[in-house]
């Protein structure tokens, strides 16, 4: 009879139960690992041999067959090592574990040649899968303990080596959970970033606050060195605080991609991802085989900052359209399919023209060149970015005279208040929790204008030749501005502010082109 242990395999950001079956048969001594494992799985044979030998056990001189079931699904990773080792020890009679205990336990961990346990990635989804599959005991490497214990409802056992695991399983040794002194945070989560450091950009910051409050995406246009990146890095400091559920979602993604290994704890701040513009499409949306999440999923519940967005590959950018709409992305490959959450706020930055100094005296770009440059951003992408704002280069020499900007804490308070209003507004509506996500019908219902504001809007449309689809955007942004000031109705000043949020469209109307 084969000995059965349990472990997990990853599929996307989810894990599923894998049964590790081990038999020793009479025949030429060999190790065969079957069940569609990748190279890391196949090489486990060598790690097993070495670690058993050095871990005061003996590697059986028999034909060893290890099967990872379900056998028809590709598996990858080195975390099956521990389950294989335990089942082989049990099978060869070197340890004696109560079968009931074994059937209630699952094992995760990579083995070193010296029989030590090494941390692995993707522990969080595996623990969740363990709980879902009714496992009661989970054995993990000690470095993964904190991550594993984020999930309640089953016993986590963290060990340093295979010998310790074997001793505990046989009841030779008692288990003491590792003690972690709470590492005191030397830095606050945002690494000292605060909007108070940004001076002379009050107008822009006001629009950023509204973008964050209403869930709108934002594009900052400005000459090189005017502070676009500086501002972008601070946007996450004014986003509403993470709920526990959101934090767990983020941690899960980071666990799978291996970003968590060193930190091993819950991610408590909103992610800020800024991929370079040579990023491939797969690295942005996710891909590979097996499928792993891309930047847009790593930015889930946080900010995806695309600096120099005009330099990004057009195809990669267009691939963002569907995830931006649906807030999830499904990456399909022949062998595997992964659905990853991708609810991010897009913050983009670009130069206004090829030389970067549009609107200043030194710029010599023609209107046709400027438009061609801006057309690098496709219409559908621009369409999904509601706020386009110029960043004013600040006068350094005048900076000292200006008072400190408003702090992030203060701005975040305003954002949270506006978000609460929206939550109340969209209560009971699935998939809509911010103004940006309002459907046509909701806009009609929630964005009523008085006659004064309508007149203002139509005047502006006449003057600047805005397109019809811009109309709804103005309404949504005006709604957010009203929410920020806790006004039930949209007032003329909200519409005015909204009208100033589409700098690119407005500029388009003033260009001398056919």
């Amino acid at each position, binding site marked *: 009879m084969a000995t059965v242990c349990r472990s997990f395999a990853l599929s996307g950001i989810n894990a599923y139960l894998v049964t590790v079956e081990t038999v020793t048969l009479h025949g030429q001594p060999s190790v065969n690992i079957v069940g569609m494992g990748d190279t890391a799985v196949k090489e486990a044979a060598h790690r097993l041999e070495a670690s058993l030998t050095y871990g005061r056990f003996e590697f059986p001189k028999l034909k060893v067959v290890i099967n990872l079931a379900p056998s028809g699904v590709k598996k990858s990773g080195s975390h099956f090592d521990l389950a294989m080792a335990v089942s082989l020890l049990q099978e060869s009679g070197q340890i004696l574990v109560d079968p009931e205990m074994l059937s209630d336990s699952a094992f995760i961990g990579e083995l070193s040649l010296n029989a030590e346990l090494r941390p692995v990635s993707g522990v969080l989804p595996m623990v969740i899968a363990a709980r879902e599959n009714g496992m009661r005991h989970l054995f993990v490497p000690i470095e993964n303990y904190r991550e594993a214990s984020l999930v309640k409802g089953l016993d986590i056992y963290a060990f340093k080596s295979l010998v310790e695991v074997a001793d505990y399983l046989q009841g030779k040794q008692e288990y003491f959970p590792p003690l972690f002194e709470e590492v005191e945070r030397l830095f606050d989560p945002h690494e000292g970033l605060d909007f108070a450091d940004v001076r002379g950009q009050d107008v822009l910051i006001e629009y950023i606050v509204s973008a964050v409050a209403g869930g709108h995406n934002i594009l900052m*246009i400005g000459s090189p060195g005017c502070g676009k990146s500086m501002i972008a890095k601070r946007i996450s400091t004014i986003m509403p605080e993470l709920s526990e559920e959101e934090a767990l979602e983020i941690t899960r993604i980071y666990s799978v991609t291996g970003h968590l290994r060193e930190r091993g704890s819950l991610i408590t701040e909103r992610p800020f991802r800024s991929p370079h513009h040579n990023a491939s499409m797969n690295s942005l949306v996710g891909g590979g085989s097996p499928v792993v999440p891309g930047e847009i999923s790593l930015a889930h519940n946080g900010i995806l900052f695309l600096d120099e967005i005009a330099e990004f590959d057009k195809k990669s950018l267009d691939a963002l359209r569907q995830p931006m709409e649906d807030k999830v992305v499904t990456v399909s490959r022949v062998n595997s399919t992964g659905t990853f959450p991708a609810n991010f706020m897009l913050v983009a930055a670009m130069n206004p023209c090829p030389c970067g100094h549009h609107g200043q005296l030194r710029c010599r770009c023609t209107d046709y060149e400027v438009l061609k440059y801006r057309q690098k951003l496709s219409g559908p992408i621009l369409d999904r970015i509601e706020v386009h704002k110029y960043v004013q280069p600040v006068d350094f020499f005048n900076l000292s005279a200006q008072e400190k900007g408003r702090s992030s804490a203060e701005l975040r308070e305003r954002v949270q208040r506006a978000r609460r209003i929206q939550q109340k507004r969209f209560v009971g509506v699935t998939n809509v929790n911010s103004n940006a996500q309002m459907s046509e019908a909701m806009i009609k219902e929630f964005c009523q204008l008085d006659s004064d504001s309508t007149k203002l809007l139509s005047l502006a449309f006449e003057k600047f030749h805005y397109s019809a689809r811009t109309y709804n955007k103005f309404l949504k942004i005006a709604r957010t501005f009203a929410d920020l000031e806790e006004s039930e109705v949209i007032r003329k000043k909200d519409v005015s502010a909204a009208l100033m949020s589409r700098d690119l469209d407005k500029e388009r109307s003033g260009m001398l082109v056919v």
Partner: protein
Amino acid sequence: MEIYWLWLSHLKGIGPATSRKLVNGLGSPRAVYQATHEKLLSIQGLRSGLIETLLSQRSLDTAKRVQELMRRYEIHLLTYDNPYFPYYINRFSSLPAVLYYRGNLRLPTSCIGIVGSRRCTSYGKEVVAEAAAFLGMAGVTVVSGMAKGIDSYAHTACLKAGGYTLTFVANGVDICYPPEHQTLMEEIIENGAVISSYPPGTRPRQEYFPNRNKLLAAWVDKLLVVEATERSGALITAKYALEYNRKVLAVPNSIYSPESVGTNRLLLNGAEVYLEPRQLIDNNEIEVKCSSANDQLSPPRAMKKQEKLDCTTNPQEQAILDMLDQPQAVQNLLSICNGDLSGLLELLCQMELEGKVVVSGQKVQGVR
């Protein structure tokens, strides 16, 4: 007939002067194609080598290939004996006898050339926009070269004013150069014509541009040079224009502006100082036509100012206008509204819609 024109114009060693001589002497290009040795001998002043060429190179393959391209792109041939071909061009035998064009030609009327720097300033843009729009409204043809900068603005402003415009390019008319002017080119074909002496399929080359400039200079009645650096192609056009006795006007500007070194030098050498669009048209000729354009487009600049003063302004608006001697960041105007940002935005929005200020990006400008 077209195919024989193409054949003749593609023969090596036969330039525009010889083509004219041959066609004038024998009556038509087909006659040239079919001419015998004796007939060719009867034409005065042909080099003997040329007759050899004409008799030996009877292949129409090249011509047929070009004709195919012309059909595909709806390109037409404009030959020197066509009534649409300006008769005065024939006076200069070095100018091409065969042209290719796309679009609609008009019988030769008065037309004004506007040329200038590719890398122009906003001052240049403003000047050219005013001039070309004025001409477009007055029904005067605007001629330029579809290059970046001043040229493209001249075409664009003219088209926007509902005018008619011709463009001379230094490549085949099937090619758009620079590529970002694709829509502009289509618009010109719709409301004007793209003309070239180079057969379709020719890519632009540096050495083609002076020839293009020469043709443009001969075609126009007057030439306005808006901005030109020291070594600008616009100066070559101006040089030819003077050679062909066309009036050259130049736009004055700061002596320190590198984009105006060429134009200022033209002024020094006797070009007319350009101060307003009316200088571009002959008063007696089109006075009537342009009176409406006058009213609409060129209100004396003083009047505009008067109008602006007539508007009632509240004290806050006045305070903003007072600060706008030069463009200001929105940020800097906050103090006027006591730091109330949304109030300021509302005010600016209102003022912009009333045409009192221009808000571009984060910058507020007064209206001149």
